[in-house]
């Protein structure tokens, strides 16, 4: 997927409802439930062995940049918005974008020595995506509270979230993805339906990389 440079101010695309997005092609990325066999908890494996989770089947992905900032807009169907995290059984909806930080880092949350960078948005803290590093399933750890600026919108049974960040940032390259014009970047996606008590490994995820090249 090639992403052309738009001559526009960042404010014009930070909002998921901004006009500019209607002109950007949406890639429909298929999602599947995270495999039960890969859950790192016997309890989770046993309680959710019937796979009653991860039912969001696809996410629409749009990307644009203006030479300074890159924006990724995700949109998916979620019949009910779950914004809260107060009751013990409240789980907010969420979405994440995963970037490999080494050439062969596996899409399944990385591996030892093969870290991945995960931008995690959640409906209970909608204005920022947490930056997580992971080197395997169950290892993600938050390293940056503001990995990307996010804006979200829930309308007619659908979530739309825009993640925005400078193409390159000061953080050591080993800790976060950097976007270079002309250079392809791989990404993968995950979505949590909080209304179905989805959290952690209970999610829908894209089993294939989406390759994105910001162009000059």
């Amino acid at each position, binding site marked *: 997927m090639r992403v052309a440079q738009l001559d526009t101010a960042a404010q014009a695309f930070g909002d998921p409802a901004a006009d500019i997005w209607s002109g950007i092609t949406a890639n429909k990325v298929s999602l599947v439930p995270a495999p039960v066999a890969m*859950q*790192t*908890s*016997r*309890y*989770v494996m*046993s*309680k959710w062995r019937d796979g009653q989770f991860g039912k969001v089947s696809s996410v629409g992905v749009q990307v644009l940049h203006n030479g300074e900032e890159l924006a990724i807009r995700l949109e998916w169907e979620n019949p009910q918005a779950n914004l809260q*995290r*107060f*009751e*013990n*059984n*409240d789980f907010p909806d969420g979405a994440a974008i995963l970037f490999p930080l080494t050439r062969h880092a596996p899409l399944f949350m990385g591996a030892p020595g093969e870290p991945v960078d995960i931008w995690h948005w959640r409906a209970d803290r909608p204005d920022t995506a947490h930056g997580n590093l992971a080197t395997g*399933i*169950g*290892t*993600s*750890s938050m390293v940056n509270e503001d990995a990307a600026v996010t804006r979200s919108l829930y309308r007619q049974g659908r979530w739309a979230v825009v993640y925005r960040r400078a193409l390159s940032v000061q953080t050591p390259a080993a800790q976060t993805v950097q976007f270079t014009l002309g250079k392809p970047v791989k990404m993968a996606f995950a979505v949590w339906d909080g209304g179905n008590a989805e*959290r*952690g*490994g209970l999610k829908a995820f894209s089993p294939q990389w989406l390759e994105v090249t910001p162009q000059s």
Partner: protein
Amino acid sequence: MNKVEIGREIDGVVRKPKRQLAMVFDLNKCLGCHTCSIACKQQWTREEGQENMWWTVVNTLPGRGTPRDWEDMGGGFDAQGRQLPSLIPTREDFGDDFEFNKEEVFNGGKGVQNYLQPKNSRGEKPSWSPNWDEDQGGGEYPNSHFFYFPRLCNHCTHPACLEACPRNAIYKREEDGVVLVNENHCKGYRFCMEACPYKRIYYNHVRDISQKCIFCLPRIEKGVAPACARQCPGRMRFVGYLDDKDGPIHKLVNEWQVALPLHEEYGTQPNVYYVPPMSPPSIGPDGKVEHSKPRIPLEYLESLFGPRVKEALATIEREKARKRNGEESELMDALIVYKWPDDIFPDFVADPANL
């Protein structure tokens, strides 16, 4: 870090820690004063997000407990060691926390028109609290009965909470078997709250983490007994290492076998043991005393502590009789606790005031 490194395997193989700290609660001495719960609250759960937490709580039994009807919620392991499904108790189940209209009644000049009334965290009139059914108990007059029942995390040998955490955020200490949630690693998924059959884990919604009894670790490490035990006016909370042959725990659990685990069938191998409550005999329909029938039905105690209750109660009665007859009884002496704190938590006698 994977589960093998922390002494547990993902397939549920149980590896015991080098030593295990344990508690014995003598239910015959509990006053139901809640000093333990307040001591714990003062020490550990006064922050925002912890308002509804009672890491240790004292219920009246027979009763619905805290959280309400927790024994019907499932969790733990089956006989094959498989984890059983359960659910997350709600704030309402735990009893939530209340705000009272104190300003209005005490300072607002409305003391005559209005009265003190609680509101729960949703601003509603509460339908439950951690001790809503306090002192109700069971049975019909003249056989009505109840006893007080303190509960806290059992620091299980096979902790269902630990096995349920997909992030290895829960660990069991090799040196003393204390089960802890690593708050830096916990992401508030609450699988532990689901899996724990004793429902002794709370959710801190402000910090988005799970929290529970830490066996007063910072005190223990300085030779000070846990707050609930040291403050207990009933002197009914024994603390020590299970393998300490000279300590009261080993004596009560292994030698005299009068202290029994709660719901052993949950499969987590809990490390809090209870000396079951004695009770006076029942009164029959004809008004006669039925000496063979204790007022707290044996079946009820068996439903909590298993089939060994009968034997444990018989041992206590036998030793009590010896003492009454002026004979020596090591068991009675241990339960009475003549020398405090040496006889009740011998390894943790340091006075926190001197630290």
